């Protein structure tokens, strides 16, 4: 089978790209190993709500909120239904239950092997997600005592899966703080190992924090405007939750609910978890970062002369920690039955047979234009702008990348044409050449 562009993955990113290619009449298919919104259907825990408000899921060519509260936070079933409506509304050419098993380069583009036949295309867009694999620190996990169960966020659905007893949650970004709270509430004592994290109020000066970051242009910061792109691409998710509207889920809230805080999990020795003694600095850094963001928001408010329209600035009590947080915890004797690794996610490119990965297995790309002609990627953290990994960021990224892709197809078409005419001694316009070069004007 042949097409101009294969999009791998029917999450919001693949769908947004499909819509953008459709606008340019570029022939394409969206190959999806499961169903539309597969990640939301199969890889998320039960209580999860989006941490971005409903208004902040703007996808290109779609403004259907179907009677939902724009300031609410969608549940998983609501998120899935939303993406299904989107796929339907834009008539995305999705081939469901079609897993891509390999992508290879060919003379004229790419060969894509799937569980349902082979495709040849001139370009490929990787929209297969940034969170396919839960990052588990392998050496640490391997050293866990046999009596302690190990869960990733992909395996976790709700607290009833866990044995009664203590739980060590490793990681205190969005996933870690949400799961620590839910598990603590279920009556299991949670110890939370805290490494780098970013504290953030849910609401500030009468508005949702996402509203401020959107309005003040903070989410629009572009990849070519930051000094240290490698660094910002590794920044952890904000400590936010869409549950219990408006509540701040920071370490102070967790401490108040009974969660015990420890430093970064630094080692496991003789059945003992060893924690870093740097917790005080971790929370200080996080408070400083939060305050810098709030300063930026306040600066924007004064610059725009909006002081009269919103409540005055507020600052939050510094993060409280014990005078001497625990440095070691004997897991078995300390009653820990489960370790939950909320240590982040990474993409899976095991099927990508194109030499475009760096030594740490990350895709080499410049704002989504991969270091291989005709190969593109969507949905990675800070791909083109700060909001690139959010649902709300896909529209603009897809617009810019589809423009680049269209130019690439045109140039290829020109080269192919030249080759053909020199080889055959005459000019033959094939239909695919014509459709590609006319569609981008």
């Amino acid at each position: 089978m042949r097409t101009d562009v294969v999009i791998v993955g029917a999450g919001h990113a693949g769908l947004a790209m499909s819509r953008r290619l459709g606008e340019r009449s570029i022939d394409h298919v969206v190959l999806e190993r499961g169903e539309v919104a597969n990640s939301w259907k199969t890889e998320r825990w039960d209580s999860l709500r989006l941490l971005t408000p409903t208004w902040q899921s703007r996808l290109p060519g779609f403004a259907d909120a179907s009677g939902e509260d724009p300031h609410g936070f969608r549940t998983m079933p609501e998120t899935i239904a939303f993406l299904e409506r989107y796929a339907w509304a834009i008539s995305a050419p999705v081939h469901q239950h079609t897993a891509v098993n390999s992508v290879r380069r060919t003379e004229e583009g790419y060969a894509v092997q799937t569980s349902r036949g082979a495709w040849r295309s001139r370009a490929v867009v990787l929209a297969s997600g940034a969170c396919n694999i839960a990052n588990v620190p392998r050496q640490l996990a391997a050293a866990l005592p046999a009596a302690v169960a190990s869960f990733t966020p992909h395996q976790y659905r709700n607290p009833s899966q866990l044995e009664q007893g203590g739980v060590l949650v490793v990681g205190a970004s969005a996933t870690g703080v949400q799961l620590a709270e839910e598990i603590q509430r279920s009556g299991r004592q949670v110890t939370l190992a805290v490494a780098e994290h970013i504290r953030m109020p849910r609401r500030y000066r009468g508005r949702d924090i996402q509203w401020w970051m959107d309005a003040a242009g903070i989410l629009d910061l572009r990849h070519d405007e930051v000094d240290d792109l490698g660094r910002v691409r590794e920044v952890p998710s904000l400590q936010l939750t869409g549950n219990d509207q408006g509540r701040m889920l920071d370490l102070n809230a967790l401490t108040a609910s009974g969660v015990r805080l420890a430093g970064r999990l630094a080692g496991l020795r003789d059945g003992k978890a060893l924690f870093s003694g740097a917790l005080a600095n971790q929370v200080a850094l996080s408070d400083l970062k939060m305050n810098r963001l709030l300063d930026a928001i306040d600066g924007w408010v004064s610059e725009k002369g909006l002081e009269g329209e919103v409540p005055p600035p507020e600052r939050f009590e510094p993060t409280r920690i014990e005078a001497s947080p625990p440095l070691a915890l004997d897991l078995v004797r300390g009653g820990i039955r489960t370790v939950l690794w909320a240590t982040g996610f990474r993409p899976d490119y095991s099927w990508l047979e194109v030499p475009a990965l760096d030594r740490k297995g990350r895709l080499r790309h410049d704002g989504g234009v991969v270091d291989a002609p005709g190969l593109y990627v969507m949905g990675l953290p800070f791909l083109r702008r700060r909001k690139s990994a959010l649902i709300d960021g896909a529209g603009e990224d897809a617009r810019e990348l589809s423009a680049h892709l269209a130019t690439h197809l045109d140039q290829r078409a020109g080269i192919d044409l030249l080759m053909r005419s020199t080889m055959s001694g005459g000019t033959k316009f094939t239909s695919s050449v014509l459709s590609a070069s006319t569609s981008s004007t």
Partner: protein
Amino acid sequence: MTAVAEKQVQNGVNVEALLGAREALSKAPEAARFNWKATSKWVGGTHTRTHMKSFFGLGGDQSHKSEFSFDTDHPEIFASEDKGATPVEMVLTGLAGCLTAGVAAVAQMRKIQLRSVKATLEGSMDIQGILGIDSDVRNGFDGVTVKFEIDADATKQEIEALVAQSQKRSAVYDILTNPTNVTVSVS
């Protein structure tokens, strides 16, 4: 975020060289492997002298401009001769040197002029551990505090951020706060 106008700041740290090294090493990560070396010799009693001259880094053997040596001993209340600082004080020396260098480098990077940087360090320890009186008491520090007094062209918040960032990038701070495998052998 405060906009910092282009200004001349001189803390005596060559930030361009540091940034250049960072750039070069991210392209050639093998060269980033360093081995720091010290050789020591027992002088007598609890007195030891340790020398540092050569080390390995950037893919080859390197050397200090001259050899440094430090004496460690214990004070008279330990029935020693007090010919040098205690080894645990040398740990505080390392921490002070590392954090302060970090403060200077980060200040230079952030265009903050420093006027003075003083730190007071304390490591607290219950010597029942080393004396083997109570096996529940650990040998080493049970807590370390560092108090900085910094005079600089910056707000209190900017100074706090300097100190926080220097901890984040400090080797000795990391060595003290995280477990490290230590292998001791006899030849």
